[in-house]
């Protein structure tokens, strides 16, 4: 899968210099994802804001190699909330 890297555990030590766990949750996509806020698919290399996810959920995806911490302007609309899941 393009962009696939070895999963790692997210910690402050893994974050880029100056980026701590309480800063804006900006991530780089490593494996294709669909955001529940806009239903758009983001390819590896995209920079997204994951503030709609809990810290535990973000760690879940980082540990599995879907995201890595990043900086920059996110490509997604951060004002949108996650769309409720039917039948969930």
């Amino acid at each position: 899968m393009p962009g696939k890297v070895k999963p790692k555990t997210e910690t402050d030590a893994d974050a880029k210099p100056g980026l701590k766990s309480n800063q804006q949750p900006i991530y780089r996509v490593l494996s294709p994802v669909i955001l529940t806020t806009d239903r758009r698919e983001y390819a590896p290399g995209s920079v997204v804001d994951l503030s709609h996810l809990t810290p535990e959920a973000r760690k879940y995806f980082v540990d599995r190699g879907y995201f890595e911490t990043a900086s920059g302007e996110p490509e997604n609309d951060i004002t949108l909330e996650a769309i409720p899941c039917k039948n969930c």
Partner: protein
Amino acid sequence: MALPDGMSACLMCVEIMTGTAWVDVSDNMTVVEPPEQTRMTGEAYVFGEDTAVTVVGKREPVEVTVRGVWANGTADPFYSVYAEFTAPCGDMVAVRYSPLGCATSNDAFATSTTKSEVISLTFPGGDSGSADVIMYQFVVRTPTLTHAAWA
């Protein structure tokens, strides 16, 4: 070895894109036939061996068949698909389905959003001797299906 966790399509979520945004049509669709993708194959035989020399080539396009419950009125997804199918030279209809639902951490499979055209459309019909629900069906053809996770 433990049995894997099996699952049914009870929670499946189906979306289509006929413009620029995905639309959840799970309330209208009933079936997504399991798509199959193949690779081109070739073989040759030599006198000195009983088995073939085999090779594989590139992956072939995928066809995704979707069936839905038809409802009267242009708000039904059938009419969105119909409009793209009848557009001059055909227009794009992308399909995405998530077997466990459109929710965080679930997997999704999608056709291309740039090359995915309807190649077949089965219009709603009826049988006077049946109480079957009126259905329709369409088939899209796309270079490949891609996989992504909901986040």
